[in-house]
């Protein structure tokens, strides 16, 4: 009787040699898929952000335009022609025929409010920020 001796294949070797390769392959594919997904996500986000920026830019332009409209409206409402019409029609006022001068010891009232960009140069807020620091310091010293 002849015994056929065939050495058994080392199961562990097959597993050991093939599994890491498959794992590596799977990992590589997963990595590629992940990168692709990330890239798509990135592009998608960039596109979305770009769209949002465009929308916000348009919104900003719209708000600026509305702001200009409001500034123009303030100017229109404070125009002398309108004040004159309002005085004559709504308040039924007429030009003075006799002028009376009354002396009062009161400070001059504040100017009518204007949009900031139209504020006159002698406006207190504007004056404070102008001039070198040492000048402001000198102003603090009494009797100087």
């Amino acid at each position: 009787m002849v015994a056929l001796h065939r050495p058994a294949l080392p199961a562990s070797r097959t597993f050991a040699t093939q599994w890491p390769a498959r794992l590596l392959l799977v990992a590589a594919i997963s990595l590629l898929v992940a990168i692709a997904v990330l890239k798509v996500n990135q592009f998608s986000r960039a596109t979305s952000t770009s769209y949002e920026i465009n929308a916000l830019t348009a919104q900003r332009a719209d708000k600026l335009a509305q702001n200009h409209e409001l500034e123009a409206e303030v100017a229109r409402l404070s125009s002398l022609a309108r004040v004159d019409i309002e005085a004559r029609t709504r308040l039924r006022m007429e030009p003075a025929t006799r002028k009376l001068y009354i002396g009062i010891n009161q400070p001059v009232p504040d100017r009518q409010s204007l949009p900031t960009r139209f504020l006159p140069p002698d406006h207190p807020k504007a004056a404070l920020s102008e001039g070198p620091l040492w000048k402001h310091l000198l102003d603090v010293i009494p009797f100087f």
Partner: protein
Amino acid sequence: MFGHRGRMHTRLLTLAAVFLLGGAGVTARVAYVQLADTAHYKAEAHDEHFGQQEIRAARGAILDRNGYPLATTVDAYDIFINRPDWQNLDDARKAAAFIAPLIGVQQPEDLVDEVRKDDKGLYLAYAGLDFNKGDLLHDADAPGLRVVQTTKRFYPEGDLASPLLGFVGRDHVGLTGIEKDFDTELGGTPGTVYFERDSIGNRLALGAERVGQKPEPGGDIRLTIDRYIQRLVEGEMQTQVVRTGALGGSIIVMDPKTGAVLAMTSSPEFKLSELNLNDPNQALFRNRAVTDVYEPGSVFKTLTASMAVDLGLVTPESTYNDTGAAYVGGATIRNWDYSTNGTTSVTQLLQRSLNTGAVWLSGLIGKDQFYSYLQKFGIGEATHVGLGGEPDGLLRTPDNPAWTDVDLATNAFGQGVGATPLQVITAISAMANGGKLMRPYVVQQMDTPEGKRDFSPVVVRQVVSEQTAATVADMMNRVVEGVAGNLAAIKGYHVAGKTGTTTGATLADGTVHNGNVASFIGFAPLDDPKMIVLIKLDFREDKLGGQVSAPVFKDIAPSILAYLGVRPDGSQLVTGDH
């Protein structure tokens, strides 16, 4: 056989060499294009793919001295209609029904007819439509509708100071007035936007867009003009034109201490709200208070008197014998009213505005001193106010061969000499400013992206002494308050003034009429002048400055003084915190 194979081999080698050389050539060319001359080809490709469009910078505002805008810029829309899209009548009618009411067209059918007159190109339906209305159209989906965002000039005070402000063209470039003279500062720097375009240059709807250079908005210009005073004098000018039948004229209000012009108007003038660039009378676009010369007449006698006083030749009480006529170089010069006044003082000379007295003074002064003083007063030289079109004026001096002694005599009472209203008020302001001649100015501040620039008052020179200026001012006060019934006198304020009347009214179109130029110049209050006013009215007939122009001063001066916070004297105050 070998020979045949050998030939084959040679042919193959030749073919290979040809391909090799060709390939090498292509490779070399590619390398040259890609590496050596990259920038050039990149730019060409960019130009091919991208179009560029200028972005107009927002134009700055023109403000009055307190910051109220006289001209500013607001967003607007230009409304176009693509004609080919309206060839379908149903579509056109549907779109017109929506668009017409928003652009102020009464009948939509009129708009349809107008657009369908041609079947190509764009039709400009409305230029500069209000932002809110344009916004409605912008969001609409009407066939053929093209809405382009733009800006337009807005004048909150209406037609106020039209010739001074001027206007801009369709391209937003200043064409006249402040808009033109300060176009660089107001206009800003346009930006550039690059956009992707197709092979025939049309913009791609969803193509890339990049802003190359951001537009730099224009700066704001703050004038010395006060809107209240400006409106007051413009209203008064219109009233006088109606009341007196004047052909027109000019009024200038100035702060004599600084030279700041508070108001400036001319009549007739164009209206910004009714601007018509096709109007043949383009002369109306000029700011004639600055550009047009006239014979100042007797208001010049104040200058002549000041020279004589300054040289110590006379005092207000010095006298001469007025025989009613003066004889100079073979010419006879008479008083305006042909009067003979006998012994007359210098003050009376001014009160009665005697030509013979002015001739007498000019004889005392002498031609060299007289013209030297006139030039010191700025006569014959532009004031350099900073506005375009300002002439030097007309002054014939002794170094001119055509000059004669008659010139000296007539110049002494303001005839034979040409000056602008601005030159006259500037010269006589010296009497209200301690003898100092100020440079007039209308721009007090420019606020541009480069920074703020303030314009301070400039003393040109001391023309006469402070004492002389006070003496002449006092004599001018006697002219107004020393003559009963003077029409320029106002209650509660001491006024100094002088009338002037000459023949030859020049109209806006340059034609000269035989009528009179009636003027009055006055300042108040006498002890500390806050304003000086020149009123010049042109007439077709004979009118006197004292009759028609002096009352204008009386009408407007109290309002201006009260507005400037100048208290009247005690007699006019109702309650006594004074």
